[in-house]
């Protein structure tokens, strides 16, 4: 059994949850991982201060796609305030697989666009700190 490409990772990669577009939507954001050309967008619908619906879209490696899929299941129903403050540790713990420095950006891309959509600030994680 591969450390990184666990069954649940491949399962989320092949059948990602909450992928696609949302219409209508309240918030959206879109970003790239310039190193590998991965691309991810998110659409969010709010109900008061809660995330009522959320969908990711784009393309990327198994790690970035599975991370977005797994995160989406946690994010739906979460308070906007709480989601906007989630950090890298949250995502990496949720993934539960060893992520090397080179794959960190893959794992965090969904968090980057989701935070960007909620806060309007696309600068997270700050350069060099990688959201740790």
């Amino acid at each position, binding site marked *: 059994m591969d450390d990184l490409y666990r069954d649940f990772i491949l399962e989320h990669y*092949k059948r990602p949850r909450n992928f696609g577009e949302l219409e209508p939507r309240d918030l959206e954001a879109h970003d790239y991982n310039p190193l590998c050309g991965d691309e991810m967008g998110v659409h969010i619908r709010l109900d008061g201060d809660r995330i009522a619906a959320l969908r990711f879209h784009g*393309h990327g490696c198994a790690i970035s796609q599975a991370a977005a899929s797994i995160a989406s299941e946690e994010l739906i129903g979460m308070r906007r305030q709480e989601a906007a403050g989630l950090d890298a540790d949250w995502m990496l713990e949720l993934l539960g697989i060893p992520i090397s420095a080179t*794959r960190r950006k893959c794992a965090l891309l969904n968090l980057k666009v989701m935070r960007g959509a909620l806060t309007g600030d696309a600068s997270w994680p700050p350069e060099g700190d990688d959201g740790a």
Partner: protein
Amino acid sequence: MTAGPSIASARAEAAPAGPGAPLPVPLDIRGDFPILAREIDGRRLVYLDSAATSQKPESVIAAIDDYYRAHNANIHRGVYTLAQEATDLFEGARQRVAAFVGGEPATTIFTRNATEAINLVAYSWGRTHLGPGDAVLITQMEHHSNIVPWQLLCAERGAELRYLEVSDSGQLSLAQLESELARGDVRLVAVAHVSNVLGTINPIAEIVARARAAGAVSLIDGSQAVPQLTVDVSAVGADFYAWTGHKALGPTGIGVLQGRAELLEAMPPFLAGGDMIASVDFQSSTWNELPWKFEAGTSMIAEAVGLGAAVDYLTGLGMERVRAHERALVAETLERLAGLPDLRVLGPADADARGGVVSFVIEGIHPHDIAELLNRQGVSIRAGHHCAMPLMRRLGVPATARASFGPYNVSADVDALADALAGARRTFEL
């Protein structure tokens, strides 16, 4: 092993036919490259990323080491023994580097890399020759280093940047070149000799001739060609030919621009400072002769010495033999990969039409995951856009996986690649 007829014939073609004929392939020169003795997590290193940078033979490493241990001094203008030795080593390297590709020392300018060589032309030639209503013609298969300098230049000068298209089989169309040139506004044509993604070997002599007939200047990016083909810049006839040392078994930090003397002489300097001047007065200066006019500041002396040793090594192998060897490896790779379901190779189907580069995608596994899984088998390949984002868009893929060869690769490396790819498919349950 599936050694098909195409491989057998490639090897037969390259068999010696008498004095002066290329020596036989396959080559096995792994012993000359210290790094290839390394293991990656207990496995033999299978290095398949030579299009990004080549490994270095012992003789190159030794030449750099010897330079610093025994001859180091600043060059030009020194009267003492060391300075003379260093100057002779540096200028001697220039002579051998020039001769290696059929050029003249005076028109062989050392730069930091191919990128700087191209920027030199864009800055120095481009800013004095391009204006509104003019066009620069490049291709969809260029490396960013042969795109972005032209974007900046065209934006600054109010000129237009146009592209020759890449066909589905990864080739350029001479008919489109003709129709672009017929518009009468093209001042410069800039094309890669060999594509770093598709491997395509472009018909550059033909492209250069047609550009010249239309009154346009030509620049060929030979970064991927010089390491693996017999290149004769005088036969190609390009106005500028740019390449980079580190892909041709040399060290990083040195590239080459070869240009036509009349053009170089008429061009203003690129960088200004020491070494590039004849005399400096308080308000103005006069320029040194070629090639030094374009070599401001202290040069990359050890790197030039290393590149000199690299071209000596390649000359010793024989570039025809290097080409025959890499061609055979590519033919074998194309054949092995054709046996893997869901895998699509990009670029020309025929090994004769391509250099030692094989880009591919696998339906259901992202290129990054392919590279990660291959690394666990000790197989080093590159995944991504390979600094050719416009080409990725043209091909309709976000990224590719790319295996590329150097003269030190062997058939067993192709086996390792194919086996590791089969393993990756199993991991992803394809």
